[in-house]
């Protein structure tokens, strides 16, 4: 539930349980907190229009009640979090907002890769897109040894075989499969 960001990295030792939970305030954290608090204020401003409250209806049956509880809760906790940020304003530590935002932007590139992959699967097919995507990503990530390309192909084929052929998850056949010879087409639509 905590130090999720440590998974895959080296363990940092903590002497007290609090050391695992409490991270020092950074300016990136403050910016993030302020932005999410502003989003909560915006959602609160929309409460009357985006969630309905009817006259002469008992509170528990009001459709907007639980949206309101969620938003008011965000504002409540967010307000005290803002106060805490204010009290710690002189002791902010790294990372700074800009350096952290650069990492978020860097991750944005992989979001694009993911969305391109997602968009291509219904057109090109699950197996060819997956293998092609993994090969391209292997190259993009800078792996140049042959064994990584071999591993990428193996991983792609295994994923498709396990999920689509064996577990029969619902991934439709691709538009491109329509051009295949009829003997291969139904097999490709069902299993690839």
């Amino acid at each position: 539930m905590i130090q999720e960001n440590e998974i895959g990295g080296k363990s940092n030792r903590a002497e007290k349980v609090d050391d695992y939970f409490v991270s020092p305030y950074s300016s990136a954290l403050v910016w993030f907190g302020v932005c999410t608090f502003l989003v909560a204020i915006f959602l609160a401003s929309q409460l009357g229009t985006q969630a309905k409250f009817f006259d002469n209806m008992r509170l528990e049956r009001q459709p907007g009640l639980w949206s309101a509880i969620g938003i008011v809760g965000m504002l409540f906790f967010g307000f005290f979090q803002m106060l805490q940020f204010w009290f710690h304003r002189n002791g902010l530590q790294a990372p700074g907002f800009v350096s952290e935002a650069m990492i978020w932007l860097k991750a944005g590139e992989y979001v694009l890769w993911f969305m391109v992959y997602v968009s291509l699967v219904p057109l090109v097919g699950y197996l060819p897109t997956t293998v092609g995507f993994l090969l391209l990503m292997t190259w993009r990530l800078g792996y140049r040894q042959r064994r990584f390309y071999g591993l990428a192909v193996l991983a792609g084929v295994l994923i498709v075989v396990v999920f689509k052929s064996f577990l029969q998850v619902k991934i439709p056949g691709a538009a491109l499969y329509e051009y295949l010879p009829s003997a291969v087409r139904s097999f490709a639509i069902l299993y690839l």
Partner: protein
Amino acid sequence: MELFLTSLGALARIDVAIALLIGSVGGVIIGAIPGVGPAIAIAILLPATFALEPIVGLTLLLGIYGSSMYGGAIPAILVNAPGTAVNALTTYDGYPMTQRGEAARALSLAFGASFCGGIISIIALMSLSPVLAAVAPMFGSREIFLAALLGMVLVVVTHRGQALAAGALLCLGIFINTIGLESTRYTQRYTFDQAWLASGIDLIVVVLGLFALSQAFLLLVGEDEHNEPPALVGRIFDGLREVLRLPKIFVPSAGFGVIMGMIPGVGEFLAQFFSYSLARKTSGNGENFGKGAPEGLVASEAANNAVPAAAMIPLLALGIPGEALTAMMLAVFYVHNVIPGPQLFANDFDFILSLYLALIILNILAFGFLLGTTKWLTQVVRIPNRFLGMVILVLSFVGVFSLRNSIIDCAIAAAFGMFGLMLKRLNLPIVPIILGMVLGGIMEVKFRTSMARVETPLDFIERPVAQVLFAIIVFVLIAHFYALFRAKKSKDLSNDQAS
């Protein structure tokens, strides 16, 4: 006896056996790979299990949940990188043992302790069943509402030093769960006239985004770790015998795991931390804790592996998940129209018993698998992080897209993946969002049904179980504020002394 045989019969099927085998072996392997962890694996597999029968799907997921802790000890001990978040304390004594050439002994101790912790936990669960079966029917709508509220309060207060952030994220989860068409007057909530929001935001899409995609992005933007596992010299099997000579360590540790696992919102980490602290005080070897003390390793592993079985208690008895993994399993129950809670205990106890038996079998399978394959399995820590991130990206697609074949779902999951990445980078918790979504949904329904029979606010707590739950909530809040007050006072005192 008849009930036992019926439950055993439910497991004596080829599909259940395959699910148990894949779950337990897969869980060990997944746990052993730093950067994956059971939450990601369960999130990815969740939609695939919807096509399976409940007992098959649940044994598969339980296998991954229960056995990943075994595998998580491998990178924690060999390369000082916890395979799952809850193996963090295992590095304290496991890695120093590896440094002094005792890697095989450390691994065998960890596996032995995990096995003992798991079995003790299941025995506790089975012993508690008659009590649970008697108590569970006393839970009506009001009591379940209060139990869910208690879960929320505990999720917030156990994030010490981050309670405000955890509270805000929990409320965000409550809010996200309300988006879309509501079921009483069929009005839209926070859809901003967007058709793609009308059916709401699916829990699994959020789970896959926050757990799987965020981890993929995190690994992809990071650097590759060059882990080189040491050669293992010695027998892996001897550890169980050595663990059994330390009952004063593994029994209380497993006890902590059981108690902490049962309390919603607390989970493995606190169980591990408290049992480790207790073992340090009671073992007589406290000065060597953190330097490779076998007792420390046994305490942390016995505690964390005792949690999964115990975490099933609030889920099965009340239908309330205590943490993210059981929240995901709740989705499997709902998809098959099996509603966990008092009625399940009363009417389908053989199903519950089948799950307990499955837990025992998967512990034996995981332990046996490790005894035979550890020397080979240690090589998985060599997989580069970013390569792993790219594979998780592809696997996440299966999980999201197979739900409704919707590219919009994939875009929503990617957005939550980015949000999860930010939270992880800033060391903020993501579990409260999931619990907010699940518990918020339960509370909304239970509040509506229970208020129909309530005239005054005091009626809400007129029954004994409701009174007990209400008293616990008040006690937890008072204890939390008292702890905050004391912490501030001691900080002020130390500041005064410093000046």
